[in-house]
């Protein structure tokens, strides 16, 4: 993505790259302004609600991408981290009366801890083996939560799920009557996740993850312990996903294992990243921004008439993207941007 390319590396390419970088920066700034102004310009609650859902998925996909996109491993179990975050947030608030803001962070930390337990053995596996193991872990946790009413005195409430006790409009309790506060919270979370990814791109960890993706043996020869850095990245990703699960819980005011820890949720995150462009800062965001509304619109317009059609469309998009845009939708966008910047210069 844009930011990656704007790294000034070789003298001769410098001009092109910075031109491209400028275009990209402009685009990002413009998108930022639009994002900030959106709920003010379009205060319709359903519209804002839909935007929040898009941003939430963008945030979750960005979190997924943080490890999976950069080390090139396909996790289909990230929902387990969202589940830990979501459940922790709700339980800490409903049982201990501690503010969900803190609960989200605790949930994130717990998710990161779980990720170390899961990731330590799992990251030795490659390709489909890794993917299948992550599904297996997430499914174990899902089935366990669905069938556990209380665990060590903690009421998990089994398959029934847990609702967030209503206290009315309160910043401390992270409950608002309107949509706009949620919008800005998730927007800030997304920006932070994007910044973290942007930082990752130019950090040691980022270079190391990309090296591990490129070739594990070669990475080891360059002083990289793959297990260690993959785990660090996974823990950060799990933390972010866990916090996202906390937001999910607060926004929908309900968590249940079937959905929040379900395979479909994990698959959604992976698909958005992959279709948008994994291993890039803005790819997952692009994927979420394009796919979530497609799902929503087709569901709204076709769901009642031709059930299943919207998922068929989704599947076809996936097939086409894998075949014709292996680097994601961000790839053509990138070339359009650089063409535009060239034209701009020659003009």
């Amino acid at each position, binding site marked *: 993505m844009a930011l990656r390319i704007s790294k000034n590396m070789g003298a001769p390419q410098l001009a092109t790259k910075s031109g491209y970088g400028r275009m990209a920066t402009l685009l990002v700034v413009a998108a930022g302004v639009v994002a900030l102004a959106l709920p003010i310009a379009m205060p*319709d*609650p*359903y*519209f804002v*609600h*839909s935007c929040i*859902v898009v941003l939430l998925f963008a945030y979750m996909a960005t979190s997924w991408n943080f490890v999976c996109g950069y080390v090139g491993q396909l996790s289909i179990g990230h929902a387990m981290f969202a589940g830990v975050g979501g459940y922790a947030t709700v339980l800490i608030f409903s049982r201990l009366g501690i503010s969900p803001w803190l609960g989200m962070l605790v949930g994130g930390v717990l998710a990161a801890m779980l990720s170390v337990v899961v990731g330590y053995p799992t990251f030795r596996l490659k390709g489909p083996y890794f993917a299948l193991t992550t599904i297996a872990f997430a499914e174990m946790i899902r*089935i366990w939560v*669905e*069938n556990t009413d209380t665990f060590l005195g903690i009421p998990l409430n*089994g*398959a*029934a*799920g847990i*609702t967030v006790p*209503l206290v009315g409009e309160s910043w401390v309790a992270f409950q608002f*009557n309107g949509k706009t506060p949620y919008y800005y919270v998730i927007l800030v979370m997304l920006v932070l996740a994007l910044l973290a990814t942007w930082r990752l791109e130019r950090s040691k960890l980022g270079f190391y993850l990309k090296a591990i993706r490129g070739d594990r043996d070669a990475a080891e020869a360059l002083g990289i312990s793959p297990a260690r850095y993959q785990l660090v990245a996974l823990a950060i990703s799990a933390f972010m996903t866990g916090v996202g699960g906390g937001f*999910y819980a607060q926004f*929908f*005011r*309900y968590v*249940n294992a*079937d*959905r929040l820890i379900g395979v*479909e949720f994990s698959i959604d995150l992976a698909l958005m990243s992959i279709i948008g462009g994994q291993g890039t800062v803005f790819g997952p965001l692009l994927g979420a921004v394009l796919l979530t509304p497609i799902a*929503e619109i087709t*569901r*709204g317009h076709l*769901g*009642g008439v031709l*059930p*299943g059609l919207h*998922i068929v469309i989704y599947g076809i998009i996936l097939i086409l993207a894998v075949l014709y845009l292996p680097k994601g939708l961000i790839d053509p966008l990138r070339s359009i941007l650089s063409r535009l910047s060239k034209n701009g210069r020659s003009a």
Partner: protein
Amino acid sequence: MTHSISRRGVLGIAATMALGSKAFAQPAEVVIGWILPLTGVSASVGQQTRVGAQIATDQINAAGGIKSLGGARIRLVFGDSQSKPDIGVSETERLIQRENVAAVAGAFNSAVTFPASEVAQRYKTPWLTMGAVKDEITERGFEYVFRLNNKAIYDAREQIDAMDFFKKETGKGPKTLAMFYEGSDWGRSHAANVRKLAKERGYDVVLDEAAPPNQVDFSSQLLKIRAAKPDALIVAFYTPDQLLLSRQMMEQRLDLPYGVHSVGGGTEDPAFYKAISPRAVAYYFVQEDRQVDALQGVRYPEYDDLEKKFRELLGYNMSAYGAQGFATMYVLKDALERAASSDRDKLRDALAKTDITSGPALYVGYQRIKFDEHGQNTFAHGAISQNLDGQRRTVWPAESRAKDIKPIWPVPAFGARS
């Protein structure tokens, strides 16, 4: 079954707010929203409910719409929850904000109904719970949330009541029970209620077993049931698993002296009866949301039309889900007539004062529809049917039985059946 069926109707009056005033206006439109699982594992239920609601709507419109609103027609909009809570919430937002519905009905799955009805409450939009049986749905102090159908606890109580009654009637009955149910929300919450009641009534639960949905083999579980030797078996499964279970029980000739007692679910789904051999389900006791026999006395012309169209559209006979979709629309029609407005608050107040004792709204078989202060229809009840000669005939409550019907109790073993 009650559990999985939720009804949701959103009444929206599109754009014609002037209607509320006494000004004589063009026949306008009242929009009602439904949130249903139209895809995914519960899609079958969603489709049946949708068809039932649509047929009722067509009947209402054909009969002149909402007369107190100058003949306003009802238009339905549907949202597909895919059985996922967050999508159900988003769709509810869409219906309320975008489609401007006057009320929302739904959403079968308790997991969807819970957060989605809260959205309706927040926007002060009446929510008619359809299918979802979780007790708490009407126990949150939400004045915009109503429920036509049973609560979960009613279902369990009716099953146990029926057993107690047959025992009293014949002097014979089960002492030990086994429970076998699907391991997600509905099955588990039903099991919890049965567990509680069985203990109170002195039944001994000798096996309490859940299974994850969509199994391909129940042999191991049937072995456990065989080993536990219960007098009767209480089951709660959706259609695919119920089909597998019923077939394997017949194949393995797993006999229970006091039979199989199913709570709706697969045993209420007409597709199930199309797929299963009648022998496999003979003498089944089914706790039903709809009481066919109780309807034999009062037939409205709407019923024949409904049953005919339903069969044409779906290829099988009326189901409890279809009936609930149908009844929900007539409850809403009744409230709209009395409110003479599509204003959500006025409609809510009208719904709260609902007291229906006749008409097509009673198609599910209730004698009356009246909501208590929590919005629960206290006259909601199911019935217990027994599968006799290939038909489910009401055997409990006794007053709903047809004259020629008596339960077969205990049930004959597979080997002793013709």
